[in-house]
Protein backbone atom coordinates (compact mmCIF):
# COMPACT_ATOMS: atom_id res chain seq x y z
CA UNK A 1 0.00 0.00 0.00
CA UNK A 2 1.18 3.51 -0.63
CA UNK A 3 0.03 7.14 -0.95
CA UNK A 4 -3.73 6.65 -0.54
CA UNK A 5 -3.39 3.56 1.64
CA UNK A 6 -5.59 1.46 -0.62
CA UNK A 7 -4.63 -2.10 -1.57
CA UNK A 8 -3.47 -2.41 -5.18
CA UNK A 9 -5.41 -4.38 -7.79
CA UNK A 10 -4.17 -5.73 -11.08
CA UNK A 11 -5.74 -7.84 -13.79
CA UNK A 12 -4.11 -9.21 -16.90
CA UNK A 13 -5.12 -11.23 -19.95
CA UNK A 14 -2.71 -13.64 -21.56
CA UNK A 15 -4.03 -16.10 -24.16
CA UNK A 16 -7.76 -15.63 -23.61
CA UNK A 17 -10.95 -14.37 -25.23
CA UNK A 18 -11.70 -11.42 -22.95
CA UNK A 19 -14.72 -13.13 -21.38
CA UNK A 20 -13.06 -13.19 -17.96
CA UNK A 21 -12.77 -9.39 -17.99
CA UNK A 22 -16.44 -9.09 -18.91
CA UNK A 23 -17.43 -11.43 -16.12
CA UNK A 24 -15.61 -9.20 -13.61
CA UNK A 25 -17.63 -6.24 -14.90
CA UNK A 26 -20.72 -8.45 -14.61
CA UNK A 27 -20.54 -8.27 -10.83
CA UNK A 28 -22.68 -5.18 -11.48
CA UNK A 29 -22.74 -2.33 -8.99
CA UNK A 30 -20.23 -4.18 -6.79
CA UNK A 31 -17.61 -2.96 -9.22
CA UNK A 32 -18.00 0.40 -7.45
CA UNK A 33 -17.00 -1.25 -4.19
CA UNK A 34 -13.96 -2.74 -5.92
CA UNK A 35 -13.05 0.74 -7.12
CA UNK A 36 -13.62 2.16 -3.65
CA UNK A 37 -11.54 -0.45 -1.87
CA UNK A 38 -8.76 -0.96 -4.41
CA UNK A 39 -6.41 1.22 -6.29
CA UNK A 40 -6.20 -0.22 -9.83
CA UNK A 41 -2.55 -0.21 -10.88
CA UNK A 42 -2.71 -2.44 -13.98
CA UNK A 43 -5.63 -3.64 -16.07
CA UNK A 44 -5.10 -3.37 -19.83
CA UNK A 45 -8.79 -3.74 -20.70
CA UNK A 46 -9.88 -0.90 -18.44
CA UNK A 47 -6.93 1.34 -17.66
CA UNK A 48 -3.92 2.74 -19.48
CA UNK A 49 -0.94 1.33 -17.61
CA UNK A 50 1.99 0.03 -19.62
CA UNK A 51 4.22 -3.00 -19.08
CA UNK A 52 6.95 -0.47 -18.29
CA UNK A 53 4.89 0.85 -15.36
CA UNK A 54 4.59 -2.64 -13.94
CA UNK A 55 8.33 -3.22 -14.34
CA UNK A 56 8.88 -0.06 -12.30
CA UNK A 57 6.75 -1.23 -9.34
CA UNK A 58 8.57 -2.65 -6.31
CA UNK A 59 8.27 -6.43 -5.86
CA UNK A 60 5.01 -7.46 -4.20
CA UNK A 61 3.48 -4.04 -4.92
CA UNK A 62 0.19 -5.45 -6.30
CA UNK A 63 -1.88 -6.87 -3.45
CA UNK A 64 -4.26 -8.87 -5.66
CA UNK A 65 -3.60 -9.81 -9.25
CA UNK A 66 -6.18 -11.72 -11.26
CA UNK A 67 -4.39 -13.40 -14.15
CA UNK A 68 -6.58 -14.80 -16.89
CA UNK A 69 -5.49 -16.51 -20.06
CA UNK A 70 -3.24 -19.43 -20.87
CA UNK A 71 0.48 -19.38 -21.71
CA UNK A 72 0.50 -19.58 -25.51
CA UNK A 73 3.58 -17.50 -26.35
CA UNK A 74 6.68 -15.97 -24.84
CA UNK A 75 4.93 -12.68 -24.06
CA UNK A 76 2.33 -14.51 -21.96
CA UNK A 77 5.12 -16.28 -20.11
CA UNK A 78 7.13 -13.12 -19.55
CA UNK A 79 4.08 -11.36 -18.12
CA UNK A 80 3.36 -14.35 -15.86
CA UNK A 81 6.85 -14.06 -14.37
CA UNK A 82 6.65 -10.28 -14.07
CA UNK A 83 3.24 -10.30 -12.39
CA UNK A 84 4.29 -13.10 -10.06
CA UNK A 85 7.20 -10.98 -8.94
CA UNK A 86 5.11 -7.84 -8.51
CA UNK A 87 2.09 -9.47 -6.78
CA UNK A 88 1.47 -10.60 -3.23
CA UNK A 89 -1.52 -12.75 -4.21
CA UNK A 90 -1.57 -14.13 -7.74
CA UNK A 91 -4.81 -15.79 -8.80
CA UNK A 92 -5.23 -18.07 -11.83
CA UNK A 93 -8.52 -16.57 -12.93
CA UNK A 94 -10.75 -18.63 -15.21
CA UNK A 95 -10.28 -21.85 -17.10
CA UNK A 96 -7.48 -20.69 -19.47
CA UNK A 97 -5.12 -19.71 -16.68
CA UNK A 98 -6.21 -22.68 -14.59
CA UNK A 99 -6.09 -25.53 -17.12
CA UNK A 100 -5.52 -24.22 -20.66
CA UNK A 101 -9.19 -24.12 -21.73
CA UNK A 102 -10.07 -23.71 -25.43
CA UNK A 103 -6.61 -22.36 -26.42
CA UNK A 104 -5.07 -25.61 -25.15
CA UNK A 105 -7.17 -27.69 -27.55
CA UNK A 106 -4.40 -26.66 -29.93
CA UNK A 107 -2.21 -29.09 -28.01
CA UNK A 108 -3.83 -31.74 -30.21
CA UNK A 109 -1.82 -30.31 -33.07
CA UNK A 110 1.47 -28.51 -33.65
CA UNK A 111 2.59 -24.94 -34.17
CA UNK A 112 3.45 -25.71 -37.81
CA UNK A 113 0.02 -27.15 -38.52
CA UNK A 114 -1.63 -24.12 -36.91
CA UNK A 115 0.49 -21.70 -38.97
CA UNK A 116 -0.22 -23.72 -42.09
CA UNK A 117 -3.97 -23.36 -41.56
CA UNK A 118 -4.05 -19.81 -40.30
CA UNK A 119 -1.53 -18.16 -42.63
CA UNK A 120 -1.64 -20.35 -45.75
CA UNK A 121 -4.58 -22.73 -46.19
CA UNK A 122 -7.54 -20.86 -44.77
CA UNK A 123 -9.89 -19.91 -47.67
CA UNK A 124 -10.13 -16.30 -46.49
CA UNK A 125 -6.35 -15.82 -46.51
CA UNK A 126 -4.54 -14.02 -49.32
CA UNK A 127 -0.85 -14.47 -48.64
CA UNK A 128 0.99 -14.74 -51.99
CA UNK A 129 4.36 -14.19 -50.31
CA UNK A 130 3.56 -17.12 -47.99
CA UNK A 131 4.64 -14.99 -45.06
CA UNK A 132 4.67 -16.74 -41.70
CA UNK A 133 5.42 -14.71 -38.58
CA UNK A 134 8.99 -15.04 -37.33
CA UNK A 135 10.16 -14.11 -33.85
CA UNK A 136 12.92 -11.94 -35.36
CA UNK A 137 12.74 -10.12 -38.70
CA UNK A 138 15.51 -8.01 -40.18
CA UNK A 139 14.36 -4.71 -41.71
CA UNK A 140 16.51 -1.83 -42.99
CA UNK A 141 16.02 -0.01 -39.69
CA UNK A 142 17.21 -2.99 -37.63
CA UNK A 143 15.56 -6.03 -36.11
CA UNK A 144 11.87 -6.45 -35.32
CA UNK A 145 10.89 -8.80 -32.51
CA UNK A 146 7.52 -10.39 -31.87
CA UNK A 147 6.72 -12.97 -29.18
CA UNK A 148 7.53 -16.58 -29.95
CA UNK A 149 4.51 -18.80 -30.50
CA UNK A 150 4.91 -21.99 -28.46
CA UNK A 151 4.08 -25.49 -29.61
CA UNK A 152 2.36 -26.41 -26.36
CA UNK A 153 -0.12 -24.27 -24.44
CA UNK A 154 0.48 -24.27 -20.70
CA UNK A 155 -1.53 -23.30 -17.68
CA UNK A 156 -0.34 -20.47 -15.41
CA UNK A 157 0.71 -22.84 -12.63
CA UNK A 158 2.97 -24.69 -15.08
CA UNK A 159 5.16 -21.59 -15.41
CA UNK A 160 4.89 -19.74 -12.07
CA UNK A 161 3.75 -20.32 -8.51
CA UNK A 162 0.02 -19.62 -8.14
CA UNK A 163 -1.71 -18.73 -4.85
CA UNK A 164 -5.35 -19.42 -5.74
CA UNK A 165 -7.45 -20.64 -8.62
CA UNK A 166 -10.92 -19.47 -9.62
CA UNK A 167 -12.31 -21.89 -12.21
CA UNK A 168 -14.90 -21.28 -14.92
CA UNK A 169 -15.20 -20.14 -18.52
CA UNK A 170 -15.74 -17.52 -17.43
CA UNK A 171 -16.11 -17.62 -13.63
CA UNK A 172 -19.65 -16.79 -12.59
CA UNK A 173 -20.04 -13.19 -11.33
CA UNK A 174 -21.64 -14.22 -8.01
CA UNK A 175 -18.61 -16.44 -7.35
CA UNK A 176 -16.18 -13.65 -8.28
CA UNK A 177 -17.92 -11.29 -5.90
CA UNK A 178 -17.86 -13.89 -3.11
CA UNK A 179 -14.11 -14.29 -3.58
CA UNK A 180 -13.50 -10.52 -3.72
CA UNK A 181 -15.38 -10.10 -0.46
CA UNK A 182 -13.10 -12.64 1.22
CA UNK A 183 -10.01 -10.87 -0.12
CA UNK A 184 -11.31 -7.43 0.88
CA UNK A 185 -12.06 -8.68 4.40
CA UNK A 186 -8.54 -10.09 4.60
CA UNK A 187 -6.95 -6.88 3.38
CA UNK A 188 -9.05 -4.45 5.38
CA UNK A 189 -10.02 -6.34 8.54
CA UNK A 190 -7.21 -8.84 8.81
CA UNK A 191 -9.56 -11.80 8.20
CA UNK A 192 -7.89 -15.02 7.14
CA UNK A 193 -7.34 -15.98 3.53
CA UNK A 194 -8.07 -19.52 2.40
CA UNK A 195 -5.07 -21.92 2.45
CA UNK A 196 -2.63 -21.33 -0.39
CA UNK A 197 -3.31 -23.46 -3.42
CA UNK A 198 -7.08 -23.56 -2.86
CA UNK A 199 -9.57 -23.61 -5.68
CA UNK A 200 -11.95 -20.85 -4.66
CA UNK A 201 -15.27 -19.58 -5.95
CA UNK A 202 -16.52 -23.10 -6.64
CA UNK A 203 -17.62 -26.30 -4.96
CA UNK A 204 -15.83 -29.59 -4.36
CA UNK A 205 -18.70 -31.70 -5.70
CA UNK A 206 -19.92 -32.32 -9.25
CA UNK A 207 -22.22 -30.19 -11.41
CA UNK A 208 -24.68 -33.14 -11.26
CA UNK A 209 -25.12 -32.37 -7.54
CA UNK A 210 -26.37 -28.88 -8.38
CA UNK A 211 -28.41 -29.97 -11.35
CA UNK A 212 -32.14 -30.12 -10.72
CA UNK A 213 -32.87 -32.81 -13.29
CA UNK A 214 -33.95 -36.03 -11.60
CA UNK A 215 -31.42 -38.81 -12.07
CA UNK A 216 -32.17 -42.45 -12.65
CA UNK A 217 -30.21 -45.39 -14.03
CA UNK A 218 -28.77 -44.46 -17.39
CA UNK A 219 -28.69 -46.77 -20.40
CA UNK A 220 -27.62 -45.23 -23.66
CA UNK A 221 -27.96 -46.88 -27.07
CA UNK A 222 -26.50 -44.02 -29.03
CA UNK A 223 -25.13 -40.53 -28.40
CA UNK A 224 -26.42 -37.33 -29.93
CA UNK A 225 -24.62 -34.12 -30.76
CA UNK A 226 -26.46 -31.02 -29.57
CA UNK A 227 -27.97 -30.26 -32.98
CA UNK A 228 -29.21 -33.81 -33.49
CA UNK A 229 -31.78 -33.85 -30.74
CA UNK A 230 -34.16 -31.51 -28.97
CA UNK A 231 -33.76 -32.46 -25.31
CA UNK A 232 -36.78 -33.47 -23.34
CA UNK A 233 -37.14 -30.89 -20.56
CA UNK A 234 -36.70 -32.01 -16.95
CA UNK A 235 -34.79 -35.17 -17.86
CA UNK A 236 -31.08 -35.72 -17.26
CA UNK A 237 -29.33 -35.04 -20.57
CA UNK A 238 -26.88 -37.90 -20.27
CA UNK A 239 -29.84 -40.25 -19.86
CA UNK A 240 -31.06 -38.94 -23.21
CA UNK A 241 -27.72 -39.67 -24.88
CA UNK A 242 -26.64 -36.03 -24.96
CA UNK A 243 -23.08 -35.82 -23.67
CA UNK A 244 -23.12 -33.83 -20.44
CA UNK A 245 -19.86 -33.39 -18.52
CA UNK A 246 -21.79 -32.88 -15.25
CA UNK A 247 -20.49 -36.07 -13.59
CA UNK A 248 -16.83 -35.08 -14.13
CA UNK A 249 -17.07 -31.33 -13.59
CA UNK A 250 -16.73 -29.18 -10.47
CA UNK A 251 -19.92 -27.46 -9.42
CA UNK A 252 -20.27 -23.82 -8.48
CA UNK A 253 -21.94 -22.38 -11.55
CA UNK A 254 -25.36 -23.58 -10.45
CA UNK A 255 -25.55 -26.17 -13.28
CA UNK A 256 -26.47 -23.38 -15.67
CA UNK A 257 -26.12 -25.25 -18.94
CA UNK A 258 -28.08 -28.46 -18.25
CA UNK A 259 -30.89 -26.36 -16.78
CA UNK A 260 -31.46 -24.89 -20.24
CA UNK A 261 -31.02 -28.13 -22.14
CA UNK A 262 -27.36 -27.78 -23.05
CA UNK A 263 -24.97 -30.48 -21.88
CA UNK A 264 -22.36 -29.19 -19.43
CA UNK A 265 -19.17 -28.59 -21.44
CA UNK A 266 -17.00 -29.00 -18.36
CA UNK A 267 -15.79 -25.43 -17.93
CA UNK A 268 -15.26 -25.58 -14.15
CA UNK A 269 -12.64 -28.29 -14.56
CA UNK A 270 -12.43 -31.59 -12.68
CA UNK A 271 -14.31 -31.91 -9.42
CA UNK A 272 -12.39 -32.16 -6.16
CA UNK A 273 -10.02 -35.11 -5.86
CA UNK A 274 -10.02 -35.87 -9.60
CA UNK A 275 -6.67 -35.60 -11.37
CA UNK A 276 -7.85 -35.89 -14.94
CA UNK A 277 -11.28 -34.62 -15.94
CA UNK A 278 -11.22 -36.45 -19.27
CA UNK A 279 -10.48 -39.82 -17.67
CA UNK A 280 -13.31 -39.29 -15.21
CA UNK A 281 -15.74 -38.42 -17.99
CA UNK A 282 -14.55 -41.34 -20.09
CA UNK A 283 -15.47 -43.66 -17.21
CA UNK A 284 -18.86 -42.06 -16.81
CA UNK A 285 -19.62 -42.33 -20.51
CA UNK A 286 -18.41 -45.93 -20.69
CA UNK A 287 -20.68 -46.79 -17.77
CA UNK A 288 -23.87 -45.58 -19.40
CA UNK A 289 -23.53 -47.55 -22.61
CA UNK A 290 -26.51 -49.84 -22.30
CA UNK A 291 -25.88 -52.58 -24.85
CA UNK A 292 -24.20 -55.97 -24.45
CA UNK A 293 -24.92 -59.00 -22.28
CA UNK A 294 -22.29 -61.12 -20.51
CA UNK A 295 -23.54 -64.23 -22.36
CA UNK A 296 -22.72 -62.74 -25.74
CA UNK A 297 -19.91 -63.97 -27.90
CA UNK A 298 -16.82 -61.84 -27.14
CA UNK A 299 -16.46 -60.50 -30.69
CA UNK A 300 -20.16 -59.72 -30.83
CA UNK A 301 -19.92 -57.83 -27.56
CA UNK A 302 -17.15 -55.64 -28.92
CA UNK A 303 -19.13 -54.92 -32.07
CA UNK A 304 -22.16 -53.87 -30.01
CA UNK A 305 -20.04 -51.43 -28.02
CA UNK A 306 -18.35 -50.16 -31.16
CA UNK A 307 -21.67 -49.26 -32.76
CA UNK A 308 -22.61 -47.07 -29.80
CA UNK A 309 -19.13 -45.52 -29.53
CA UNK A 310 -19.20 -44.61 -33.22
CA UNK A 311 -21.95 -42.11 -32.40
CA UNK A 312 -19.69 -40.33 -29.90
CA UNK A 313 -17.83 -37.90 -32.10
CA UNK A 314 -14.39 -36.64 -31.06
CA UNK A 315 -14.14 -38.17 -27.56
CA UNK A 316 -10.78 -36.58 -26.69
CA UNK A 317 -11.88 -33.10 -27.76
CA UNK A 318 -15.10 -33.51 -25.80
CA UNK A 319 -13.59 -34.89 -22.61
CA UNK A 320 -10.66 -32.45 -22.60
CA UNK A 321 -12.38 -29.39 -24.03
CA UNK A 322 -11.24 -27.26 -21.08
CA UNK A 323 -8.58 -29.25 -19.28
CA UNK A 324 -6.08 -30.28 -21.95
CA UNK A 325 -3.07 -28.38 -20.58
CA UNK A 326 -3.70 -29.77 -17.10
CA UNK A 327 -4.46 -33.31 -18.23
CA UNK A 328 -2.12 -36.20 -17.46
CA UNK A 329 -0.96 -36.36 -21.09
CA UNK A 330 -0.89 -32.55 -21.62
CA UNK A 331 -0.64 -32.67 -25.41
CA UNK A 332 -0.78 -35.00 -28.40
CA UNK A 333 2.20 -36.69 -29.95
CA UNK A 334 3.05 -35.33 -33.37
CA UNK A 335 4.24 -37.89 -35.89
CA UNK A 336 7.22 -36.77 -37.94
Amino acid at each position, binding site marked *: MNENGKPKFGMYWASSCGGCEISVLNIGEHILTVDEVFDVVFWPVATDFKYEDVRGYPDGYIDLCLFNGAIRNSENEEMAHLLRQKSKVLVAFGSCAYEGCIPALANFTSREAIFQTVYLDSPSVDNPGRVIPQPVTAVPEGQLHIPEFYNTVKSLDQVVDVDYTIPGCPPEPHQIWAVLQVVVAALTQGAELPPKGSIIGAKETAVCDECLHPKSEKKIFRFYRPYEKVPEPGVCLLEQGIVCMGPATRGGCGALCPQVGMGCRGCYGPLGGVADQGARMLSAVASVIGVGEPEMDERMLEREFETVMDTL*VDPAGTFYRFSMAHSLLKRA*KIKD
Partner: protein
Amino acid sequence: MNNEQFEPVIIGFTCNWCSYRAADLAGTARVKYPPNVRLIRLMCSGRIDPTFVLQAFAGGADGVLITGCHPGECHYLEQNLKALRRTMLLQRTVAQFGIEPERVRLVWASAAEGVYLANAITEMVEEIRALGPLNWPQVAALNGKSHVLTPAIASVVVSEELVEAAI
Protein backbone atom coordinates in the same frame (compact mmCIF):
# COMPACT_ATOMS: atom_id res chain seq x y z
CA MET B 1 16.83 -46.42 -31.32
CA ASN B 2 17.17 -49.92 -32.71
CA ASN B 3 13.85 -51.59 -31.93
CA GLU B 4 15.52 -55.01 -31.64
CA GLN B 5 17.26 -53.86 -28.48
CA PHE B 6 14.38 -51.81 -27.15
CA GLU B 7 12.80 -53.44 -24.10
CA PRO B 8 9.27 -52.07 -23.73
CA VAL B 9 7.96 -51.30 -20.26
CA ILE B 10 4.41 -52.56 -19.94
CA ILE B 11 2.24 -52.01 -16.90
CA GLY B 12 -0.20 -54.87 -16.38
CA PHE B 13 -3.35 -54.61 -14.31
CA THR B 14 -4.73 -58.03 -13.52
CA CYS B 15 -7.94 -59.06 -11.84
CA ASN B 16 -7.33 -61.05 -8.67
CA TRP B 17 -9.52 -64.01 -9.59
CA CYS B 18 -9.07 -65.54 -13.00
CA SER B 19 -6.32 -63.72 -14.75
CA TYR B 20 -3.90 -63.23 -11.86
CA ARG B 21 -4.21 -66.95 -11.28
CA ALA B 22 -3.55 -67.53 -14.94
CA ALA B 23 -0.36 -65.49 -14.64
CA ASP B 24 0.50 -67.42 -11.50
CA LEU B 25 -0.17 -70.72 -13.25
CA ALA B 26 2.06 -69.71 -16.11
CA GLY B 27 4.74 -69.10 -13.49
CA THR B 28 4.33 -72.38 -11.60
CA ALA B 29 4.12 -74.34 -14.87
CA ARG B 30 7.34 -72.59 -15.87
CA VAL B 31 5.79 -71.27 -19.06
CA LYS B 32 8.18 -68.56 -20.21
CA TYR B 33 6.98 -65.08 -20.95
CA PRO B 34 9.07 -61.93 -21.34
CA PRO B 35 9.79 -59.97 -18.17
CA ASN B 36 8.61 -56.66 -19.63
CA VAL B 37 5.27 -56.60 -17.83
CA ARG B 38 5.09 -55.17 -14.31
CA LEU B 39 1.92 -56.66 -12.83
CA ILE B 40 -0.35 -54.78 -10.48
CA ARG B 41 -3.13 -56.83 -8.96
CA LEU B 42 -6.64 -55.39 -8.70
CA MET B 43 -9.67 -57.14 -7.26
CA CYS B 44 -11.44 -57.00 -10.60
CA SER B 45 -10.82 -55.56 -14.05
CA GLY B 46 -13.78 -53.28 -13.33
CA ARG B 47 -11.53 -51.45 -10.87
CA ILE B 48 -9.51 -50.15 -13.81
CA ASP B 49 -9.75 -46.39 -13.86
CA PRO B 50 -8.66 -44.79 -17.16
CA THR B 51 -6.58 -42.49 -14.95
CA PHE B 52 -4.30 -45.47 -14.12
CA VAL B 53 -3.63 -46.05 -17.80
CA LEU B 54 -2.95 -42.39 -18.58
CA GLN B 55 -0.75 -42.12 -15.51
CA ALA B 56 1.26 -45.13 -16.72
CA PHE B 57 1.81 -43.50 -20.13
CA ALA B 58 2.56 -40.09 -18.61
CA GLY B 59 5.12 -41.79 -16.36
CA GLY B 60 6.91 -43.37 -19.30
CA ALA B 61 5.27 -46.79 -19.88
CA ASP B 62 5.22 -48.05 -23.48
CA GLY B 63 2.06 -50.10 -23.10
CA VAL B 64 -0.68 -51.06 -20.67
CA LEU B 65 -2.13 -54.55 -20.39
CA ILE B 66 -5.43 -55.15 -18.63
CA THR B 67 -6.54 -58.69 -17.89
CA GLY B 68 -9.84 -59.95 -16.58
CA CYS B 69 -12.15 -62.93 -16.36
CA HIS B 70 -14.05 -63.87 -19.51
CA PRO B 71 -17.44 -62.18 -19.99
CA GLY B 72 -19.98 -64.04 -17.87
CA GLU B 73 -17.29 -65.13 -15.40
CA CYS B 74 -16.51 -61.91 -13.53
CA HIS B 75 -16.76 -62.39 -9.77
CA TYR B 76 -18.50 -59.05 -9.51
CA LEU B 77 -21.15 -59.78 -12.16
CA GLU B 78 -20.66 -57.48 -15.12
CA GLN B 79 -17.76 -55.32 -14.00
CA ASN B 80 -15.54 -56.79 -16.70
CA LEU B 81 -17.95 -55.52 -19.37
CA LYS B 82 -17.42 -52.10 -17.88
CA ALA B 83 -13.68 -52.68 -18.20
CA LEU B 84 -14.16 -53.59 -21.84
CA ARG B 85 -16.22 -50.46 -22.55
CA ARG B 86 -13.65 -48.29 -20.80
CA THR B 87 -10.75 -49.89 -22.61
CA MET B 88 -12.40 -49.52 -26.01
CA LEU B 89 -13.28 -45.89 -25.41
CA LEU B 90 -9.82 -45.27 -24.03
CA GLN B 91 -8.25 -46.73 -27.18
CA ARG B 92 -10.24 -44.27 -29.29
CA THR B 93 -9.33 -41.40 -27.00
CA VAL B 94 -5.60 -42.07 -26.80
CA ALA B 95 -5.50 -42.50 -30.59
CA GLN B 96 -6.43 -38.82 -30.80
CA PHE B 97 -3.40 -38.10 -28.63
CA GLY B 98 -1.23 -39.90 -31.20
CA ILE B 99 -0.88 -43.04 -29.05
CA GLU B 100 -1.34 -46.25 -31.05
CA PRO B 101 -4.45 -48.01 -29.66
CA GLU B 102 -2.46 -51.28 -29.61
CA ARG B 103 -0.57 -49.87 -26.66
CA VAL B 104 -3.66 -50.51 -24.55
CA ARG B 105 -4.75 -54.13 -24.61
CA LEU B 106 -7.43 -56.05 -22.75
CA VAL B 107 -7.03 -59.82 -22.49
CA TRP B 108 -9.56 -62.24 -20.98
CA ALA B 109 -7.99 -65.24 -19.30
CA SER B 110 -9.51 -67.86 -17.00
CA ALA B 111 -7.52 -69.38 -14.13
CA ALA B 112 -6.69 -72.36 -16.35
CA GLU B 113 -5.37 -70.31 -19.26
CA GLY B 114 -1.80 -69.80 -18.10
CA VAL B 115 -0.25 -70.67 -21.44
CA TYR B 116 -2.78 -68.57 -23.33
CA LEU B 117 -2.01 -65.53 -21.15
CA ALA B 118 1.75 -66.06 -21.45
CA ASN B 119 1.37 -66.12 -25.24
CA ALA B 120 -0.77 -62.98 -25.21
CA ILE B 121 1.90 -61.21 -23.17
CA THR B 122 4.65 -62.32 -25.54
CA GLU B 123 2.60 -61.13 -28.48
CA MET B 124 1.97 -57.75 -26.91
CA VAL B 125 5.63 -57.26 -26.02
CA GLU B 126 6.64 -57.97 -29.61
CA GLU B 127 3.94 -55.70 -31.00
CA ILE B 128 5.08 -52.83 -28.80
CA ARG B 129 8.72 -53.52 -29.53
CA ALA B 130 7.82 -53.05 -33.19
CA LEU B 131 5.97 -49.81 -32.46
CA GLY B 132 8.99 -48.48 -30.60
CA PRO B 133 9.28 -46.44 -27.41
CA LEU B 134 6.47 -44.05 -26.52
CA ASN B 135 8.55 -41.82 -24.27
CA TRP B 136 5.70 -39.59 -23.15
CA PRO B 137 7.68 -37.35 -20.77
CA GLN B 138 9.57 -36.14 -23.84
CA VAL B 139 6.36 -35.69 -25.86
CA ALA B 140 4.76 -33.64 -23.09
CA ALA B 141 7.81 -31.37 -22.99
CA LEU B 142 7.66 -30.79 -26.75
CA ASN B 143 8.28 -27.34 -27.98
CA GLY B 144 9.98 -28.31 -31.21
CA LYS B 145 8.87 -28.79 -34.78
CA SER B 146 6.57 -30.90 -36.85
CA HIS B 147 4.16 -30.33 -39.67
CA VAL B 148 2.05 -33.47 -39.97
CA LEU B 149 -1.53 -33.21 -38.80
CA THR B 150 -2.43 -35.30 -35.78
CA PRO B 151 -5.03 -38.08 -35.69
CA ALA B 152 -7.24 -35.65 -33.76
CA ILE B 153 -7.87 -33.78 -36.97
CA ALA B 154 -8.08 -36.94 -39.05
CA SER B 155 -10.74 -38.32 -36.75
CA VAL B 156 -12.89 -35.21 -37.00
CA VAL B 157 -12.94 -35.75 -40.74
CA VAL B 158 -13.97 -39.37 -40.30
CA SER B 159 -16.67 -38.30 -37.91
CA GLU B 160 -18.15 -35.83 -40.35
CA GLU B 161 -18.55 -38.66 -42.80
CA LEU B 162 -20.28 -40.58 -40.09
CA VAL B 163 -22.66 -37.76 -39.44
CA GLU B 164 -23.41 -37.47 -43.12
CA ALA B 165 -24.09 -41.18 -43.25
CA ALA B 166 -26.46 -40.74 -40.33
CA ILE B 167 -28.43 -37.96 -42.06
